[in-house]
């Protein structure tokens, strides 16, 4: 086996592995075993006796496996059966004889399988797989063309080194062109693979109900809920609004179907532009900064209470733009009686406490302050573990266990406010987020899900209140609730976000935006300072001219060496320059110096015979030139310009 063929085999197996790795977690066990068997048989084939009977058996088994996979194809599940068929075909081809035709088919199958894997998963690592696949495929095809012409072909070490340039240059140039084409080729509004892509299993999203007391433990998950590209904001403004829950049935807070007449006024400075990248989830509510308006980029229905409902649920990553007005004010027009309803089964203890506070206070601000004092006096602690399951969660929370998480705090606060004739509702969403300075976005995970309260003040304006901050351990609970992400995690997040933003979500709208930005930049270029531009152009022209002249006269090391030698000899002879028509051998004879003789003998074949100097010769000639610096001799030469006649140099 020639060195080329050996390398080709390694490239083939490398490409196959790159294709198999992304799909391995998804395919069935028997397909995984089939792939393993194909790889092993391929590696050991040269040592095995392979009869025609064995070939027929292999074809039969492969055909059977393809049929079994194909039968799993349905209208809703196309991707996985297709990928499994490709895996089986690749395994069969790897196990077959390594003829050029079979190897070409193996490469094509590997590439197709990697492309098909994007139907199952499209993480950022896919980019690395793709780049490596392009590298291996290009190198493999180049080597395959040699082996196809002559299987026994061998290349010398030097020829192989030169070939390595092509093996690297072709894939690297291809990748650069692919990146350029990615931005400019026309795109569809929806990614094409969504047509055959699998329905994702949605992660648990924000709930559309609040049921304090139903769970004894709230499990925290570090799954990412969304990323929000925006400038860094003060922590107290980082409330992300998702859903409004305005109706309480017994213990459960729900969203009613009402459409209250609300008006939102943008006040308090400029809005904050956001781009939200939401992970797939099951609920239809689009999370934005509390409060936002003007969502763009996703089909939605804006509700009057600041909630945005997605109109088409596709369980895919979504991105949309919004403008957040955290200082904005929402006011309710019309009756607020709906927001005063409380469950009939509410504990008398809670009613008494609320009645007592109501009696002592007048006005919205006083009641809020009094209720907050009450919460503080109750010394409630924030906890998500080992909570009692009860039929009276508010009473248990306020007077018995005095432990709970945001749902308990918000629910209790809202109920008591309602008892105190303050219209109140719950708002569900997220609190805070980790700001990633590399990517300039907030990373919000599911364990930052939060519930707070909105109360209607005397002016009919909704005011945000977060009762969870009244916990005795609020500082500790909110700072330790989520572990900060490490430096490496932050960098990885930023890379992944870039991948999602610039590759996965790159659609026709972003293409047009890129076009608009390019046009704007081009328009700005026209306003350049022309004198400065002229200076730059002149400088570049001068640089080009100098480069061309240098290349002509000293373009190679050897030419430079010759010029150094001639300059040095002229200096030794006390001349400004030597006559141009003086040849090397003639010069050596005229000077009579052994160093000149040596130079002529070594360099003459290069100059007149087209030979090349080897590194040792070049080094020796440089030494000769260096030694000439100390020499002085006389050359009998005709110099009409410098001496005026056939004189003698001194």
């Amino acid at each position, binding site marked *: 086996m020639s060195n080329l063929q050996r390398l080709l085999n390694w490239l083939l197996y490398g490409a196959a592995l790159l294709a198999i790795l992304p799909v391995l977690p998804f395919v069935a066990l028997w397909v995984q075993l089939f792939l393993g068997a194909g790889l092993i048989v391929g590696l050991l084939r040269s040592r095995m006796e392979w009869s025609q009977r064995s070939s027929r058996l292999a074809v039969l088994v492969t055909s059977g496996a393809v049929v079994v996979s194909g039968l799993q194809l349905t209208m809703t599940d196309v991707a996985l059966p297709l990928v499994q068929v490709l895996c089986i075909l690749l395994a069969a081809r790897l196990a077959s004889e390594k003829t050029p035709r079979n190897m070409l088919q193996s490469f094509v199958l590997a590439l197709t399988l990697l492309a098909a894997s994007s139907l199952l998963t499209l993480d950022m690592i896919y980019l690395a797989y793709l780049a490596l696949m392009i590298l291996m495929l290009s190198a493999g*095809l180049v080597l*395959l063309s040699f082996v196809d*012409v002559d299987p026994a072909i*061998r290349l*010398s070490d030097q*020829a192989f080194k*030169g*070939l390595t340039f*092509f093996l690297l240059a072709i894939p690297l140039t291809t990748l650069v062109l692919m990146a350029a084409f990615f931005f400019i080729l026309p795109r569809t509004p929806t990614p094409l693979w969504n047509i055959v892509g699998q329905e994702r299993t949605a992660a648990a999203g924000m709930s559309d109900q609040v049921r304090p007391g139903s769970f004894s433990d709230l499990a925290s998950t570090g799954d990412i809920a969304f990323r929000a590209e925006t400038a860094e904001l003060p922590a107290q403004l980082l409330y992300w609004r998702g859903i409004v829950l305005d109706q309480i049935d017994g213990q459960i807070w729900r969203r009613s179907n009402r459409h209250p007449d609300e008006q939102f006024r943008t006040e308090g400075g400029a809005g904050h532009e956001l781009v939200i990248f939401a992970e797939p989830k099951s609920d239809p509510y689009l999370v934005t900064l509390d409060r936002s308006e003007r969502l763009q980029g996703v089909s939605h229905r804006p509700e009057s209470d600041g909630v945005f409902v997605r109109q088409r649920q596709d369980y895919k990553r979504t991105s949309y733009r919004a403008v957040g007005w955290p200082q904005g004010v929402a006011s309710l027009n019309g009756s607020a009686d709906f927001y005063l309803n409380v469950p009939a089964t509410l504990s008398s203890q809670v009613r008494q406490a609320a009645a007592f506070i109501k009696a002592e206070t007048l006005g919205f601000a006083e009641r809020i302050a009094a209720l907050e004092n009450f919460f503080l006096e109750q010394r409630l602690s924030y906890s998500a573990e080992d909570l009692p399951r009860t039929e009276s969660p508010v009473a248990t929370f306020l007077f018995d266990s005095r432990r709970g998480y945001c749902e308990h705090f918000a629910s209790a606060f809202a109920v008591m406010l309602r008892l105190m004739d303050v219209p109140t509702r719950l708002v569900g969403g997220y609190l805070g987020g980790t700001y990633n300075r590399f990517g300039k976005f907030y990373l919000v995970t599911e364990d930052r899900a939060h519930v707070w309260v909105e109360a209607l003040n005397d002016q009919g304006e909704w005011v945000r209140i977060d009762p969870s901050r009244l916990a005795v351990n609020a500082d500790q609970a909110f700072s330790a609730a989520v572990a900060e992400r490490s430096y490496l995690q932050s960098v990885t997040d930023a890379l992944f976000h870039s991948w999602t933003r610039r590759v996965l979500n790159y659609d026709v709208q972003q293409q047009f935006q890129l076009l608009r930005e390019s046009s704007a930049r081009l328009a700005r270029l026209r306003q350049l300072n022309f004198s400065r531009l002229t200076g730059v152009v002149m400088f570049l022209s001068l640089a080009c001219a100098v480069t061309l002249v240098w290349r002509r006269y000293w373009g190679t090391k050897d030419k430079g060496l010759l010029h150094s030698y001639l300059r040095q000899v002229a200096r030794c002879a006390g001349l400004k320059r030597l006559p141009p028509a003086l040849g090397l051998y003639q010069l050596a004879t005229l000077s009579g110096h052994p160093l000149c003789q040596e130079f002529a003998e070594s360099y003459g074949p290069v100059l007149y015979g087209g030979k090349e100097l080897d590194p040792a010769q070049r080094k020796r000639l440089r030494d000769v030139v260096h030694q000439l610096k100390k020499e002085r001799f006389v050359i009998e030469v005709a110099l009409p310009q410098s001496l005026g006649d056939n004189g003698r140099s001194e």
Partner: protein
Amino acid sequence: MAVTGLCGHRNLHRLELCLLPSADLFAATPGTLRLRITNRQRYIPVYLFEIRIADHKVVVPAIAACSSEVVDIALTMPKRGKQQAPMIHVSSCFPVNFFVRSYQYCPPRTLLVYPRPLASPLPVHQNSRRSASDLQIAVPGGDGDLRSIEDYRPGDPPRAIHWKLSARHDNLKTKQLNRQAAVTTMIDLQQFDGPLEERLGRCTYLVNRCFHQHCAVGLVLGAKRFSPAVGRTQQLRLLKELALYE
């Protein structure tokens, strides 16, 4: 596709072919044509190209930048005489065998093709008088007839000294003999029967045989007569006459 297409296009760029003197070519007989292929590109080697003449091809794996390689390619010329060098087809499937670039090179040279040698014995009839004089080969030797007497020079072999003559003179004299060569052969085209091409073929065979046996050979072609001589020059001279004979 774009990148590999560009690489393929550049691969045959600045590739120079040159015919070199090669082995003798005989009509309807497999021979070889020697080519020097030079890569004039300054930095980039040339890979995986094929030189084809009719049904014969040679694959060259690589030629480094500013380098040459000499290849011999099989060739069969159908007829004798001065023939235009055949078209040379250069092609390359580099880098990935999707595109095959090629071009044709027509060397601006003519090839001298000798007649096809046909095995033949020497004709029996020989003019003895002419043979005797034709056996004279003016080449110094040690086993032929006396050619001249000269003064002894340091280095002459002792057995070359003519003792009898030396005794009559004050200095030593040496004998200069001709070379006793093998039978000198004079080939006459008219001595053979058959069509012209066959006769020329027999003559060609005999000329080659005599050359390999270091025999002096001469040729009579109609009115032309070529004295016997030995050596490669004589062989080529005679073969050329046979090739161009009409």
